[in-house]
């Protein structure tokens, strides 16, 4: 069992629809991932988090890498902000403005 909130389910559904436009095999890929996650020795909430993170990384491959590099900073997830308003602007500038 994998537990997902209503909004997570909505996001996942939309992501599968969008990714299918560019990669018809995405559904098979995701089904495989679900099987893999179900076998993990974790509770349903942890499994839900792992699955959601996986889908997020598929949907936003570039942003996902950036957010990993920004994990010690509290910034909007979509990176749509003016870094000049943050005290740590010099540390994050290169991360958010490069591929």
């Amino acid at each position: 069992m994998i537990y997902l909130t209503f909004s997570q389910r909505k996001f996942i559904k939309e992501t599968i629809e969008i990714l299918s436009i560019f990669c018809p095999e995405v559904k098979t890929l995701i089904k495989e991932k679900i099987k893999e996650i179900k076998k993990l020795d974790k509770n349903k909430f942890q499994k839900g988090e792992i699955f959601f993170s996986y889908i997020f990384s598929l949907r936003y491959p570039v942003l996902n890498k950036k957010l990993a590099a920004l994990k010690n900073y509290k910034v909007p997830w979509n990176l749509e902000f003016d870094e000049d308003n943050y005290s740590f602007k010099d540390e994050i500038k290169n991360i958010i403005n490069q591929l």
Partner: protein
Amino acid sequence: MKRKIVFIKKYDYGRGVFDLGEYVISYASSCHLGCEYCYLKFAKTPKEPVIYENIEVLEKELTQLFLENKAQNFYFNLGETTDAFLSEKHIETIDKISEVISFLAEKYDKRIFLELRTKTDNILKFPSLNKRKNIFYIYAISLLPEEGITNFERNTASLEKRIESIKKAQKLSYFIGLRFEPIIVYPVLGITYEKVIKSLKGLIISYNKILEKISSILDFDLLHSISLGTLRLTKKQYKYLKEKKSKLAFFEMVLSPDKKYRYSRPIRVYIYQELIKSLKEIFGEKIVNKIYLATEFTYIWKACNLPLKSIVQLLG
């Protein structure tokens, strides 16, 4: 048909978007070019192209605008609610409007820039506009790789024809506006990070080819401005395109502060920085003064090291 609402509106840039200071004159509505990303399909506009006849109302609005505003330079976009070269009637109307504007500009000591934005090559066959006092025409041609035109702008002129049309505009002594809008991430080679990066690099190569072609025919003295703007979609458009399984509904698009979907920030900044770099290599450092970002946030301008400037500051 008579226009029942105002003709002139300050361009609505959206929350947080840098204000370029341009006005839109809605002398006509709608367009039959059928670009897949066009917002007009979702706007309250007539289904078929119409041209409004009650120019006397526009005259009143212009008088009021010039009287209330001390600025000397005004930039009017005539290709926002329709394509400026959609039909011969459009050009005839623009000529009539120019006559009115020229008269008022002289009276109130104003300098007017009229942007004629198009995706057609109709300038090659339509009669030219009359030269008028205090009026500067800007032939603003939308440019994107041929693959993008074929897939998303089906009824428009080919890239080759659009470049050809620049030569004609230069012959007519119009200023030239190169409009790299919308920049579309296409073709998308796959959904992984590596494939997305490869797609973006391919996109830049395609744009560099366009820039090279343009540099061989462009009269730099007539170059007014270069705009760069990546695809942006309303929520409705994104949903519609997703349902249509359009390749415009790219996966890495996020809702920006103005409630429009855009490519994520690293992608946009990469595209802009690379194109600015190419433009500098081709035209020299001074080109930066002619480049602006279309409907982008101040923080994106800063990320691209581009000085903020309104469109009226780009005087050709």
